[in-house]
Every structure is written in structure tokens, then in C-alpha cells.
């Protein structure tokens, strides 16, 4: 995990360096800001030093002092800028995960049990719709829907009157804002998990022990829920960790389009301004979460499937 993050940090730093210009270019282009000031800022930010020296110093501070540097534009330690945004991203990812899993499993079960019924066809339609629609387009479509109907706010996370609301009102208000971004983000994983659930359950239902269970005279409900679904779920559980990781990376697009104040919009903004250490901080943060997500997946795999053991 450590070598991976180190690699990611070198890669990010390198790409940022290869991009032409630096953070001060926009300020240089502003003719009302005197060049003396720009030079003194370059010195202060260390932008006048070669890249390997800056990277070395940055790494040193990270490793020995847990200091991830200062954002150029906010003039604040990067983590004080990132942390509030990260919380918002996690809220969005969690909501999307709940939508994805909460819908995928029951729908997958229903369409497997009633294969080729209208239920199955309807669910399959939703799944194919979800799999084929690009996130950006879906997000724009829902924004347009919100603008035309007025049922949902257009972007943002809280309404203007948020501070005057009761605690319950506050939660409802955030949920109201959360609904559309979470739907967009949750649709793709929902669709694919649903198809997987359906396929797994169909496979299991054809196995002999299910026949045995039926032959024993168990009610169909018990056969399905107790014997078939449990086994069909196993491979899906391992996917849970990956879904979290995928949701985090997917949230970047959704946040930017739908104005959700998360890590994605912050990172994009920082990238545009070439706010070097802020980009490094957010990329590392996101990668750490991705790596952790994969770790969770591996652990779950081991827990669920006794055949897999890590030594």
C-alpha cells in the first residue's frame, strides 16, 4: 500500500510539473498585479526551486511531520481545506451505495425468481438503461428535470434557510439536495449489481442442493431465501469494497456537474489553478480511500469464502 501511494504521488507530481506554467501564471497575466509581488510569491511558495527539490522537501515533510503542505490559493494547510469536502463526498458515496445495493439486490432476486416475467423485463430494462447512460449526461438530464419541475434544488447541498430549520428539517433538507446526485451516482453500480445478482441466483437455483431442498418439501420461500439467495450473495459481498472505490472515483464527475461541494469539485478546481500541494493532498486522499476500499474487498473475500486464505 505504501509503495503504491508513493508511486501515485510521484506520478501526480510529475504530471503537474509537465503541465505548462504554474499556479502564478494566472496572476502573472493580471496586469494590475506587479511583477515584484509575483516573484516574492514564487519564492514564498518555493516555485523558483527545481521540481525534485520541491518533491523531496514535500515528501520529507509528509513522512516526518505529517505535513502535507499549504494550498497556494487558500494559504491554509491542505488538510484543513480537504477534510470538510471529504465528508461531503463520503455522504454522497454512501447514499449512492445505499441506493445501488438497496435496489440491486431485491430487484435482482425478483428478476431471477420470476425469470422472463414482466418484473424481470422491467428490471432488465432499468439495468440496461443504467449501464448504458453516461453519468455526465444523466446528471445534466436530472438537472434539467429539477429546473423544469422545481421539485428538486439545482445543485448545492443545503438550502438558504438551512440554519433556521429544526434538526429534522436539516436532515430532510440535505436529503432533498442529495437525492439527484445520489441517484446519478448510484445508477450504474445498481444496474451492474442487479444483473450480477440475477445471474448468480439463476446459477444457484439450478444447482442440485436446491432441488434437494425442494424435494424435502421445504416451502419455496425458505428454499429461495435460506438456501439459494445466501449462496448467490457470496460473490457480491466481495464486490462491496470495489463498489465503494468505484463510487468515490465516480463521484468526482457527478460533483462537478451537479455542484455537490465534495472533494471532486475541489480537486478539479485545484488542478485548474495548478494549486500543486492541494492537488497532491486530494489525490492522495482519494487514492488512500481507493486502496482501503480494495483492502476491504480482499478482507471480505477472505471472510466469506473459506477457500481463500492470506498467509
Amino acid at each position, binding site marked *: 500500500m505504501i509503495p503504491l501511494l508513493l508511486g501515485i504521488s510521484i506520478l501526480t507530481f510529475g504530471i503537474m510539473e509537465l503541465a505548462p*506554467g504554474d499556479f502564478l*501564471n494566472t496572476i502573472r*497575466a493580471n496586469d494590475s498585479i506587479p511583477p515584484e509581488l509575483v516573484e516574492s510569491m514564487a519564492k514564498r511558495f518555493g516555485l523558483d526551486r527545481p521540481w525534485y527539490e520541491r518533491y523531496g522537501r514535500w515528501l520529507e515533510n509528509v513522512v516526518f511531520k505529517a505535513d502535507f503542505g499549504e494550498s497556494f490559493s487558500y494559504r491554509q494547510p491542505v488538510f484543513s481545506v480537504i477534510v470538510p469536502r471529504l465528508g461531503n463526498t463520503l455522504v454522497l458515496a454512501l447514499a449512492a451505495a445505499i441506493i445501488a445495493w438497496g435496489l440491486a439486490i431485491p430487484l435482482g432476486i425478483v428478476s431471477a425468481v420470476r425469470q422472463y416475467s414482466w418484473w424481470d*423485463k422491467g428490471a432488465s430494462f432499468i439495468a440496461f438503461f443504467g449501464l448504458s447512460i453516461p453519468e455526465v449526461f444523466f446528471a445534466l438530464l436530472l*438537472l434539467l428535470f*429539477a429546473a423544469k419541475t422545481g421539485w428538486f434544488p439545482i445543485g*448545492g447541498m443545503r*438550502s438558504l434557510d438551512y440554519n433556521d430549520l429544526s434538526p429534522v428539517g436539516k436532515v430532510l433538507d440535505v436529503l432533498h439536495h442529495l437525492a439527484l446526485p445520489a441517484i446519478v451516482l448510484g445508477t450504474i453500480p445498481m444496474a451492474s449489481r442487479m444483473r450480477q445478482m440475477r445471474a448468480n441466483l439463476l446459477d444457484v437455483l439450478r444447482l442440485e442442493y436446491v432441488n434437494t431442498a425442494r424435494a424435502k418439501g421445504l416451502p419455496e420461500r425458505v428454499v429461495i431465501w435460506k438456501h439459494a439467495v445466501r449462496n448467490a450473495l457470496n460473490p457480491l459481498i466481495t464486490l462491496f469494497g470495489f463498489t465503494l472505490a468505484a463510487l468515490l472515483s465516480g463521484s468526482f464527475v457527478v460533483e462537478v456537474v451537479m455542484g455537490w461541494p465534495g472533494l471532486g469539485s475541489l480537486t478539479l478546481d485545484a488542478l485548474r489553478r495548478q494549486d500543486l500541494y492541494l492537488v497532491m493532498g486530494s489525490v492522495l486522499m482519494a487514492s488512500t480511500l481507493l486502496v482501503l476500499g480494495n483492502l476491504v474487498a480482499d478482507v471480505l473475500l477472505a471472510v466469506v469464502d473459506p477457500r481463500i486464505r492470506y498467509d
Partner: protein
Amino acid sequence: MSFARLPRRASSAFLAAIAVLSLAGCTGGRTDTRFVDSNPLPDSALHDMDANGHHGGRLVYATIGDPKTFNVALANETSSTDILDGPVFVGLVEYDNGKQEIKPGIATRWERSPDGLTWTFHLRQGVRWSDGHPFSADDVIFTTQVMYDEKVAAAVRELLKVNGQAWKWEKVDSLTVKVTLPAPFGPVLEVIGSMYLVPKHKLEAAYLAGKYEETWSINTPPDSIVCLGPYRIVEYRPAERCVLRRNPHYWKVDANGKRLPYFDEVVFLSVPDYNAAYLKFQAGESDLQDPVRPEDASSLADDAKRQGFSLTDLGSDIATNFMWFNLNPGKDAGGKPFLEPYKLKWFQDVRFRRAVSHSIDRAGMIRTALYGNGDPQYGLITTANKKWYNPNVPKWEFDPARAKALLDEMGFKDRNNDGVREDPAGHKIEFVLYTNSENTIRKQLASIIKDNLAAVGISCIASPIEFNTLISHIRQDHRYDAILLGLTGGVPPDPALSQNVYRSSGLTHQWWPEQKHPATPWEARIDKLMDTVVQEPDFAKRKAAFDEVQAIIGEQQPIVGLAREHLVVAIRDRIKGTRPSVLRLHVMYNLEELYSERGSGQVASR
């Protein structure tokens, strides 16, 4: 059909949830509190005769991006300065964007010595900071101390100097400040107006500890940010909004003697891009759309009456679009010239630059790229700059025949019948025109130029590249043929404050920055005229000098003006007291005078 049942039930539950939410939104809103002025008015409150409204309500403005800092000295990009410069912090004097003139503010009056070197400012009596602490000349002196400090990256610092020498600031008594300049300087008041005052009682400790740059960041609790402007910051949520509430100690009163400002709250909603702001305005979630893109103006006009807002055309924008050729004869470290010498020879010939200017169909640009709403532009200064615009500059109107004649005269002829001319040495007349890819209008202008130039036998390759790369080409490696870009122009738009564009030694002297000696007689002349513009205290003389600068630039065409769209803003009808101006912040610069029509209720109830 069982399939249909589920969605229907789900959707009705869904609608119920929405109903609950919107109900919560209605009842949970702030009840209409009558404004009670609990603080005594200052002894000499400023009577603003333009203000004649009533208190209450909220103004919502959706704008791209977030403030990056609340430390006004450090703020240098619009998402921070739009909030801090004016609405929250003020200078000694104020600038009226609408009238484009300086007016009294914290300083009630000022005197200038006959030689223009000594200025005495008399401060308003009884003014208090937003926390109730009395304001005095000590705060002014403290502010100047901070601004001149090398350890603080204050954007205004170099402006508060003449020839690199700081001005001398002295406290005469608690309400009088004397400024002594080392040499004559024209825009003294303009510069002083953009030095935003900060409270000594709040910031001195941090300053003395060498921590000034770390104070008043976005993580500072807003309550502790103390200011003199009409509003103070009360809430900041990154990427969501910044909320300002009335400064209870503001020192201006309206025509009826009531304390300003009128709105209880002003909200800057942070949106990711123009489209989101536009959607919010259309949905009634914001009160202003500033600016309205040319392509949206007509569709927005259709909705205006029904949705209760109006579009205002403020005329030609003060920002400019122009192109220029690289005239820099320098070489890089490896001895390679920035530009092929034969190309430099074309570009250096004024006939070539005029021929290009003659070939450009500015009316066509306005028709297509600007959706019919724009003005041709021939220089760096547009009509928007009321005080400084010179209408009598040479205009190289659209005239392909004349362009062709000029090129023939230079010996540029199409020798191989490929439709493109060659110079006498046989080089194809071809150059690359860069522009920044983020700007759709500029990309269109570039492709129109390409077509226009093809018609006279010049091959122009329009190439949009990323803004940062473009700046690197201009500033660092100087490797380019021609560039299409613009200047936004600051507020106040005094040319002395952008002298770096005009002076041959300037860093932003685009076509050849940082010249050791002026390369041409006309650039030497401009340098000399700019001395007058910067140093002369008398406006008429400054204006005459700058008129000549504009005429020389028109004559020599080092920059070729293109076309500029009109600035259009949309304002909801319930917002009164607006006097929109082409200068930023177009609608909100007189924020303390704006108010909400009575009986029209809360802003955008949803």
C-alpha cells in the same frame, strides 16, 4: 400488470416526500423581522441621496467559484474580491462604478498641496468597526504598515509606491492623515480607494507575531472578521455559499436618514460554472444573472416578462479582444531566435499589421460570434471607459482590396498559384494564431480571422491552446507567431494602473515585453507620454497624453482590435435601486443602495 404498480406507488411516496420538504421550506423560513436600528448613528454619517428604499429581505447572487481567503490584503482573484472589496471592506475614498468617479467615503474631504505631493485626508467622525470598536487614524496607519510590509503579499503594495519608493503616511490627529509622495503621481485617489482598511485592534497582535498572512482565512470563524463595509460575513460553506449580513455600525444613511444597507442578508451562492448559475437564475433561486452570455440573451428575453425580471444592456464591455504579432527579436538560451527572422521581418512592417487589420470583418464577427450584440473595437480602450476613451484613433476598417494592395506593395505575391502569397524570398505567408481554448467566443473570432485572411492570400492557422500554456508563451519562452487574447481592465480603469501594458519595459507589454530600450521611435514616444499619464496630477494633461498613446497604438497597430460583446445582465424586478455599470461588480457595486420591493416577499421562496 405488476410491473406498473411499483413505480406508481413509489412515485406517489416520492411526491409526498417532496411535499413535506417544500412545506418545511416554506414554514421554516425566516419570519419577516422589522429592522430596528439599535446603534447610535455616527456624528457625521454620510447622507447617500441616491438611496431611497426600505429595509428587509435578501439578495441572492449565484457566482462561479468560492472566496479563497477573507484576508483582504491577499485577495487577488475575483471570487474573493467580489465579496471583500466593497461589500465587506472599504478604502478611505470610494469609487462609483456607475459615474466612474471618486467620491467621499470614510474620508469626508481631502486637500492636495499645490505641488501635488502632500495630501491631507479628514476622516469621518464617530465611525465604528462592525464590532463596535471606534475607528481612527491609527487604523489607517496600521493598514499602510501592513501593505508596505514585504512579508505580506499585498497586491496593492507596488501601487502605493512611486518609482519604487513608498509613500510616507503620518497621523496628524485621530481624524487626520497626511500622505507625502516622493514624486508626483496621477491616480493617488484611485490607488487609495483600493487600499482596503483593516482593524488594528483585531490584527495588530498577529501582525507583530509575523503571522499576518495566516489571519482571516476561510477557516476563521466569520464573527471575528471585523470590517467597515455595509455587510459583514456571517457564514461560509466551501463550494456552497458565503452569507453576508448587515453591518449594524455602518456609517451611511439614506435620503430619509435611515441607516443603510437595506437588505438583511446578501448571499453569494457558489456554483461550478456558468450553466449552473444560469439554471439557478431561471429556477428563481438567484436574483441576478451577471453576465448573460450572448447566446442566451434572446431566450432569456422571452421569459423575462413571465418570470418577472429584466435584461439590461450595459453597452460595450470594458474588457477587450485583440490580437498581436510577436515582435520580439530575442533569442533563447541556445541562441535560437524566438521567431524565424523572416516572419519577424513581416510582422515588424507596419503595412503588414495594417493589412491584417483591414482584412478583418468586424461586423461579421459581431453578427456571428457575438449574436449581433457587440461593437467593433480598434484599440485597447473601449467606449466603456468613459473618462479615458479616445474616439479619434485611426480605424483600419474592413477593406480587403486595400489589404491586398498593401501586401502587393510589400512584394507579397502568390507566385505558385496556391492561393497563398509568398514573400520575395519565397516564404509562404503563413502564421499560427493562438488563443485560449477555454473561451468559446475567442475561438470563433480566431476562425473568422482565418477565413478573412485566407481571402486576401494569408494563411492563418487558428490554434486554441490552454490558457496557462498561452501565458507561458507570452511571458517565458516567447515562442509564438500571433496571439488572440484580451485584457479585462481593473476598477478604476485608470491607464496609469496598467502602465505595464503600454511601457516598452513592462512585463505585460505583450508584443515585446521587458525591452531594455524602446525598440522603435513610437514606443519611445509612448513611454514618454506614459510618464505624463502616471505622474501628472492634472487630469486634462493626463488625458491629452493618453489620447495620444491611443492614437499611436491605432496608427502602428501593434495590437489589432477585434470586436467586443455588449455586457448584458438580468435582474429580478423586485430588486430596486440598481444602477448597473460595465465595471465589475456590474450590479452589486452599490450594494448598500439596493433594496427589495415591499410586499414581494422573500427571495425565491424555493
